[in-house]
């Protein structure tokens, strides 16, 4: 017997990706807005286990950087600073509520640790990547919840009641499916003022992405509701005096659970990508608030793209995130057949 199923492995990798993003204040060594004008476009810090005299140390360290002009930096191997774990640093709000200044790791001034280098303003890309992930993933998750909420609601109503509600809802769903939604997002976003504050832009992003996508889950759920309302046990439950809402809750929706979960797992990466796309094009949440999309948007400049490869790391990280989600979705898919038989 295998020690871990594929499904639990995928779940674990998803957790491993999400936990640092969830607790980004703790995992990030610096504040997202903290600028180091002298250190713009610094490559990722090297982590050393030896000092200048080639003696081995168990505690890793980073060396202080010196700016040698024209965007060139060199390490001063004589001035090494050990990396400390669980140290006090700049204050932050955990989950936006709890005040804390504990960081998982960091180094003492004047050295700096930039795991993923810095951007134009000398901001730590790693910290921004974690905070930006919060925004991007939250957009994906909330928009998925919104899509599924509407989709399940309208899909169940259409499938369960049939007749004209079904016809009306499904025609509207087809309209939504036929829309080129990316361009629709552009249109909606372009229609609204460009300099929205971060919270408003976020809400707008979530609601536009979420509402546009309701049609597909609605169609799937409708199909299930349509077949399950014909089942004998639904008829029987009705003959015993079950109300419509009871029948939907207890007999129809449980049939759709597997599909709803699979849809959620499929939609989250899709919507994260939608956020990244929109922010990349400057239609999402704006600077200085980081999101994966607007972090990538600096890559639109050719010079940045060819010279500073570390700025593409947030894009590269999307690949394992999406793969885990999509593989999990395909793992979840055939589960229902066993129960059905």
């Amino acid at each position, binding site marked *: 017997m295998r020690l871990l199923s594929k499904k639990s492995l995928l779940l674990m990798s998803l957790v491993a990706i999400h936990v640092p993003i969830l607790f980004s204040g703790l995992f990030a060594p610096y504040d997202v807005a903290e600028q180091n004008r002298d250190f713009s476009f610094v490559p990722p810090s090297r982590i050393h286990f030896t000092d200048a005299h080639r003696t081995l140390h168990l505690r890793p360290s980073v060396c202080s950087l010196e700016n040698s002009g024209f965007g060139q930096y060199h390490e001063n191997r004589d001035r090494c600073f050990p990396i400390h774990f669980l140290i006090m640093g700049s204050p932050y709000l955990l989950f936006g509520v709890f005040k804390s200044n504990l960081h998982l790791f960091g180094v003492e001034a004047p050295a700096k640790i930039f795991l993923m280098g810095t951007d134009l303003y000398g901001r730590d890309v790693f910290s921004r990547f974690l905070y930006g992930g919060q925004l991007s993933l939250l957009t994906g998750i909330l928009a998925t919840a919104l899509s599924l909420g509407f989709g399940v609601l309208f899909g169940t109503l259409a499938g369960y009641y049939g007749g004209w509600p079904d016809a009306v809802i499904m025609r509207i769903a087809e309209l939504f499916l036929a829309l080129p939604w990316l361009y629709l997002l552009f249109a909606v976003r372009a229609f609204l003022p460009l300099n929205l504050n971060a919270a408003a832009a976020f809400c707008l992003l979530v609601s536009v992405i979420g509402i546009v996508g309701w049609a597909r889950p609605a169609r799937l759920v409708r199909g299930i509701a349509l077949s399950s309302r014909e089942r*004998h*046990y639904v008829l*029987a439950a009705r*003959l015993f005096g079950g109300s419509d809402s009871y029948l939907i809750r207890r*007999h129809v929706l449980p049939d759709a659970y597997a599909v709803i979960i699979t849809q959620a797992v499929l939609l989250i990466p899709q919507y994260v990508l939608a956020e990244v796309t929109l922010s990349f094009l400057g239609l999402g949440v704006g600077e200085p608030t980081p999101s994966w999309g607007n972090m990538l948007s600096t890559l639109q400049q050719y010079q940045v793209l060819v010279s500073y490869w570390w700025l593409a790391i947030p894009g590269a990280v999307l690949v394992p995130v999406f793969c885990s989600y999509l593989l999990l979705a395909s793992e979840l898919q055939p589960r229902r057949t066993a129960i059905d038989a």
Partner: protein
Amino acid sequence: MDPNRHEVSLARPIDGNLLRVCNLTVSYRLGPAYESTALKQVSFTVNCAEIVGLLGESGCGKSTTALALMQMLPANARISMGSIQLDGCNLLSMKEDRLRRLRGSETSIVYQDSETLNPMMRVGNQVMEVLRAHKPAKTAQMRDEIYSIFAALGLKDCDRIYRAFPHQLSGGQRRRVAIAQALICKPRLVIADEPTSSLDSEATTGILDIFRQLRATHNTAILLISHDPETLRAADRLLVMYAGEIVESGPLNEVFEHPAHPYTRALLQCSTRQAAPPMFGVNRHSLACIPGEPPDPCEVLPGCGFSPRCSNRAEICDSLRPRLFEISGVHSARCLQYEARE
């Protein structure tokens, strides 16, 4: 001719009628301007603590009758005439909300197939939810009630059955659970639509005994619907249905011993001819021995509906519609043979 004229003989107001169906006519719309009549002026009564058997071939309107009594006819069905009175209240004019409270608590149905249980829910919970819908109480109290009804229905090992999923039970056990669902709220009228189909003879006997007991202990009225005369031996009174009409009605013994309508006669004959165990044998093919097919419900014969298959057919049968003739005070048949006698 006034269609209502002679259809009242069975619906005489008798005190103690729990259910009174009067001139019930139901048709299904099968397409634009294309209807088939499933029930034609059906009238009958069921008294408290009475078991009434409804006998007929499949497609004769038995299940339509059951669904009409529950007011759960499919969307394309239309009740064009008649009334259904339960305890003096007309079900046809009742609001859906009130009907829902009635279903399962006052009237209840034991359905013919065994897939009336949700395969993904524990059967105990499914019985519990009927109880919770109509007579909510503390969970432990309701569970006790369910255990006692399981025991009364001969389900041993209540604990295991309560927690089982439907696929873990045998056909007979599932049927008993379905009966428990129907009986848990102690309804006054139970409609049992082929309650013993596809069960072995032992389970059949057991289930019929349950109905007899129920009648004795709770004064429950039971409408027992079946295509098999042997199943209906549990009944006090028998209604025979053919092509949406009641063709004969009377006390069980009298109908079984002196069937008046040629259809009943044919039905009973082939049933006794084939029944190897005389009691409660399942004679699923017994009807094949009546020559001919039941009439197409969409075409209306001008005369007696049974005439194409009738062995006693006379010339007049093709042109005149027979009405229900009283043979004795309680026994009547829809056959022109008896017209001559009157």
